[in-house]
């Protein structure tokens, strides 16, 4: 995907810019947020906050990192702040959706098995503690390089590698038990 460059930032039209950013990155940010909060409605709400935050801090974007990286960092920090917040720890969400909403009847056996394995894997990933879940998501779903993940999560390359390794061990334990 093409990177938005710093020059674009200099255009006067901040609103057009935020629109462009949303069109390009909206979907991936929404999914990223979901991977943290595991709830569709909540993910949509937080995504809104994130783009509003992004709009408000556009002037602080220095152009040193890629705009996408900058946005992702805002998103990740926002999710983590939310998860730590009083509201999250004390208010119980009631509309947790089941991961799999389609009926299995119409599906061919092989597909069902494949799908069940997938569901099982995804469910296991979603149950991992945040620090392991995020590296798995960023590495395997977004296919980002270790270096980039280190920047996004405010850690070092080695920490990311260790967490990836540990995360895979945890998944293995849970899935093959």
């Amino acid at each position, binding site marked *: 995907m093409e990177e938005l460059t710093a020059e674009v930032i200099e255009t006067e039209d901040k609103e057009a810019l935020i629109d462009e950013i*949303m069109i390009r990155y909206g979907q991936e940010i929404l999914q990223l947020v979901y991977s943290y909060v595991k709830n569709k409605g909540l993910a949509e709400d937080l995504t*809104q906050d994130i783009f509003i935050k992004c709009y*408000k801090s556009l002037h602080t974007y220095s152009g040193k990192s890629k705009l996408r990286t900058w946005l992702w960092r805002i998103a990740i920090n926002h999710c983590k702040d939310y998860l730590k917040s*009083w509201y999250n720890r004390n208010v119980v969400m009631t509309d947790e959706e089941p991961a799999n909403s389609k009926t299995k009847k119409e599906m061919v056996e092989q597909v069902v098995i494949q799908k069940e*394995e997938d569901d099982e*894997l995804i469910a296991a*990933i979603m149950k991992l503690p945040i620090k392991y879940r995020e590296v798995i998501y960023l590495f395997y779903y977004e296919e980002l390089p270790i270096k980039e993940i280190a920047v996004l999560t405010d850690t070092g390359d080695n920490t990311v590698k260790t967490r990836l390794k540990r995360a895979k061990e945890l998944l293995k334990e849970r899935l093959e038990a």
Partner: protein
Amino acid sequence: MEDRLKNLKKSMDRTTFSQLKFSEQLRKDIREKINKQDENDEDVLLAVMQLLVHEKTGFELAKLLRGRGVRKFEDTEGFLYILLHRLEQNQCIQATWYESEAKYYRLTDKGKKILQKAAKRQSKKRFALKELLEG
């Protein structure tokens, strides 16, 4: 494990994310919120004052604000009490402790006057309330 993880993108797109769409509507909502952003602080203050026409605890107030769609204090309840404290110092609201219960806040006459003024000229409310925010 490695092989299964390699297919993660495909399987998550097919299942978990199939219902998750960054829709046109969502984008519009965000645009709208951004546009409203400037008025937001004043709106919140106005909402607080309207709600305190009848006596309430801070907790009740927070709940009702959320009901009105004010999300400002959701993760930062502390700010609500800072605002209440400031209003109290400006004598727009008064607080009462009831025995062994919580602290109740209520709009004073001065507060009511300001609220009326603000409601009357909605469009200019920013000026009527600005001094309070900065006071």
